[in-house]
Every structure is written in C-alpha cells, then in structure tokens.
C-alpha cells in the first residue's frame, strides 16, 4: 500500500494535524511518503522523517508560496500518477480539504472525509466517519484506487520515532487556471486577546446571543467562574468578538473541564474544537440544535434570562 501523506506547513513548521496523519499512516504499514509544498520548505523534510516518512517529496515553486489549493492539486496529481500511490491521506484544514477535493475530481478518485479513524481490515483500508451530527458512525471504504481520505482535525497525535527520510525535489508544473486565484494579503497570527487554551472553564457564545453587546453577560459569568470567554466562527466573522477567542475548525481547539455553549447551534465546525471538554452545558432556545446531541446538560431556554441567573447563583456560592 504505497501511501502519500500531504503535509501542510505554516510559518516554517509542519502542521500538527498533518503530522498526526503521517504517524497513523506509518502505523498502518507499507511505504509511506510525504509531500511538502511551498517555497524554501526543504528544511521541513528532516522533520517529516522523524514522524515516520521514508521519503519526502519537496515541491518548491513560487506558485506554491501562498496557501492556495489549486497549484497543490497539480503537484499531487503528477505525484500520484507518476509514482503510483494508491492511497493519499490528508489532515483536514481549510487548505487540505480544498486540495483533497480538487484532487479527487482531477484523478478521479474516491474521497472519504471527516474520518475519525483509519484501519486496515483484511488487507483493505477502512475509514470511520461520523454522520448525522455524529449520531451514527459509518464504516466507509473505496472502490478501486487511488483512495483519498481527509481525517478530522485533532484525530491523531503525532508521535516521533522515525528515522531519516530520503528527500527528492520535484519538478513543479502548474496549470493556468490553478494560478488565477492570488493571495493579496495573508493572515498573520493575532496574538492579542485572552488565551482560551489554558482556561479550566470556558463560556462560549454564538449567534443566539442576538447582538455583540450580549457578550457582556458571558463575560460576567466567566468572571464569576474564573474562566475565559470564547466565540463561534459566525460571531467572529461578524466582528462581534476577536478571532483569538474562536473555537472550532478554523479556530482554537480547547478541552476545559467545563464548557458553557450559549446560543451556539453546535455545527460540526464548532464541535471539533470543543468536543474534548470535560462537561458541556448547552443553553439554546432551539430544542433541535445539534449541540444538544453532545451536551452533558442541555438547557432549552432563553440564555438572556438563564445566564445572568447563573452568574448570580455562582457569585452567591463564592461568597
């Protein structure tokens, strides 16, 4: 099973999620190679070897500087076709998801996404994919090769232990349409704002708050509990709260002892960022909100009434 793992990098480091997938691929056995795309990324090759890659393909080209998917599809297509990989694995991210789906259409190949496990069963690769808001798990597979898989972020922990990888530079050729989208301004790390990753208690708010000023209610509860305030993507995109506090797929992944989800529907993008929390309390007026599927305590009601009352009760207990 010659397997290729797509490794993503950010600011000179390989992304943890993709290294976790590499670790898993190495455990599953067979020849595991990785591909790193960018400019000036040769230095990352040694790092890949430590996580179990036998071979590192380096695609170094100006077209690959910006983290955009389409030129990467060109690189991976050529690799898969010329080197005969039958399996290509990705750790889900905004970039990797778009690369994987583009590659699936290009080859063509079967793509299974959002996998939370991978195993080889009777010589066959089988993925495990949660469905219907994670209320059921499906065992999924592929008819024929190549097989493409996107692994849900945070699923596999990277483990060091490999040796030295053989490095090979690739000749990069990209298609005209792949280079049409251009990066005008690249995201830079926003360091301001409170750190939510170390908090034992998180009080998070979503669109159900109704307006930005209602975060005041959450701040008061968080203060009473000695916790931090977090937000969903929807309200961060809307400018209600800083990006540094965003929990979810494109934000932080947190695992506090106690997580309050206030006015949060609990879509999968949010869930992957907080499902490892110890106890989840959800307050939402919509009884059908997906958050109730995985909350330990689900309160169907108006957070504008309940949150201030909670704050009051917590304060009373403290005094």
């Amino acid at each position: 099973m010659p397997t290729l793992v797509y490794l993503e990098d950010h600011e000179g480091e390989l992304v943890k999620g993709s290294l976790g997938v590499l670790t898993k691929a190495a455990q599953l056995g067979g020849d595991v190679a990785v591909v790193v795309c960018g400019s000036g990324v040769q230095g990352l090759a040694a790092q890949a070897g430590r996580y179990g890659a036998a071979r590192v393909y380096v695609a170094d080209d100006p077209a690959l500087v910006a983290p955009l998917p389409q030129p990467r599809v060109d690189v991976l297509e050529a690799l898969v076709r010329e080197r005969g990989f039958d399996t290509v694995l990705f750790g889900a991210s905004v970039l990797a998801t778009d690369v994987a789906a583009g590659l699936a259409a290009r080859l063509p190949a079967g793509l299974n996404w959002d996998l939370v496990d991978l195993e080889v069963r009777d010589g066959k690769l089988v993925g495990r994919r949660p469905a219907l808001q994670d209320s059921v798990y499906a065992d999924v597979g592929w008819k024929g090769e190549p097989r493409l898989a996107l692994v849900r972020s945070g699923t596999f922990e990277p483990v060091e232990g490999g040796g030295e990888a053989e490095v090979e530079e690739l000749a990069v050729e990209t298609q005209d349409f792949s280079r049409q989208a251009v990066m005008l301004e690249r995201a830079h790390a926003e360091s301001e704002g409170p750190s939510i990753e170390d908090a034992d208690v998180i009080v998070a708010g979503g669109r159900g708050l109704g307006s930005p000023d209602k975060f005041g209610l959450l701040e008061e509860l968080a203060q009473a509990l000695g916790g931090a305030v977090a937000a969903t993507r929807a309200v961060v995109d809307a400018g209600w709260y800083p990006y540094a506090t965003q929990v979810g797929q494109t934000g932080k992944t947190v695992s506090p002892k106690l997580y309050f989800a206030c006015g949060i529907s609990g879509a999968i993008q949010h869930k992957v960022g907080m499902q490892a929390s110890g106890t989840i309390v959800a307050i939402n007026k919509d009884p059908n909100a997906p958050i109730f599927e995985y909350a330990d305590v689900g309160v169907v009601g108006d957070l504008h009434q309940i949150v201030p009352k909670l704050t009051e009760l917590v304060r009373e207990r403290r005094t």
Partner: protein
Amino acid sequence: MRLAVCVKEVPEASARTRIDPGTLRLDRGGAATLNPFDAHALEEALRIKERTGEGEVVAVMMAPLPAADSLRKALAIGADRAVHVADDALAGSDLVATARTLAKAVEREEPDLILLGQQGGDSDGAVLWSALADLLRLPVVSQAASLELAEGKVAVKRQTEYGYDLIEAPLPCIVAVSDAINEPRYPSLKGIMGAKKKPHETLNAADLGLGADEIGEAGSRTEVYALADPPSRGDSVRIEGDGAAAEKVVEYLTERKLI
C-alpha cells in the same frame, strides 16, 4: 452578471433523520427543506444582483424530483430561474459523481460567478466547490467571510486557522461562502406567489450528456460498509424552560464539584 447558486435539499432540523439500513444511504423520505447554508450563498447572489442593478440568479440543484419544493423556495426567496437535475440514475453519487453532474448543469448557464454554501446541513460535506472548480477548470476560493466584486474580479476575505486572508480571483470563478457572510432573507408572500411563474427547468442525466458510468453508484468510488453506534458520552440531562433552569444547572455542577 450571471450568477449561479448551487443548492441542495436537506432534512428539516426537527425531522428525525436516519440512514436506511438497507441502502446505507440517508433516508430522504422525511420533511425536507432548502439547505440553510445554501441560503447564505443565494442571499449573497441576490445582493450582488441588487448592487449592480442587473443580472440573473439561477439556482441549480441535483436531487430527486420531490425536492422541487425546496428549489421553489429558492425562487420564492428571489432566484430568477431554477434548474433541477433529477434522475434515478444519480442515486448514490459520491463527491466526484455529484460534482460531474453539477459541473454539466452549471456550465450550460455560462455564469460569471458560482456560489455555494459552506457545507451540506445533512452530510456535513464541505468539499464540493473544489471538485466542481477542478472539473470546470475555474479558480476557487472557500470560507468566504465577505466578498467584493470589481472590474471583472472578486476579492474574498477567507477565514483559515490563522486568521483572515485576502484572495483575489478573476471571473468566472467559484466562491464558497461562510454562514456569517450575511443574514438571509425569508421569502415574502409576493415571492412565494411569484415563484410559481418563474422558469423551473427539470433535466435528466441524458440531457446533460452524462453517461451511466459517470454518475450514481456506478460512477462513484467510495462506499459504505456498515453502521455503528457512536461512542457514548454518558448520560445527558435535559432541562426545559427558564423557571428553575439556572438552579438545576448549578446543582448539577455542584454535585460533580465542577464549581
């Protein structure tokens, strides 16, 4: 400006959804509606049309025939025309087979901009746009928190794990919008009445020149083997109403020494 919006139908949030144990596919027999995530793509298309003062918004859907009601909802909300690709042969299509079908349907419209929502409300799939872009050989930008059109280009603010990128692409192109990009409007009574008079075309696979081996189960390269229960999170507690809800939560947390 020709705007195409890809939409799908998903089960109602309140409907009990299940996977048919026989076919291992989503049982689409229950109450269904327009994918709420697609409403944001439609809204963005309508706003672009309103801003530029000209253009046409076409909603394109691949779904079984009974899903026509959801497509009509898109017309009621404001789309000018609807294209419905319905064919029994499409059942069981995976990502690539679906993308092939939609690519053919969208291509006929010669759109300047193709918009999609950020995910399917049922499958949680968030992969279609990139496959579609590759088949149509068009630039694609996903996770759009905002977009602006000027001089034949679209500038997109894309949210990633690291913050916001600003990406520009020439038209025609494909943009997948986040559900924070706008607040979708509801259909008005006038819209609902008018929807019945708007062009609503139904096509099958042959109309699009799709061969039997390209679509449906035959054209798909993924499969589902079995279903299992998810790992249990333990017992959960449900509290209804506002009266003593806060007290009950505090009691629960106190018992477990969490506060």
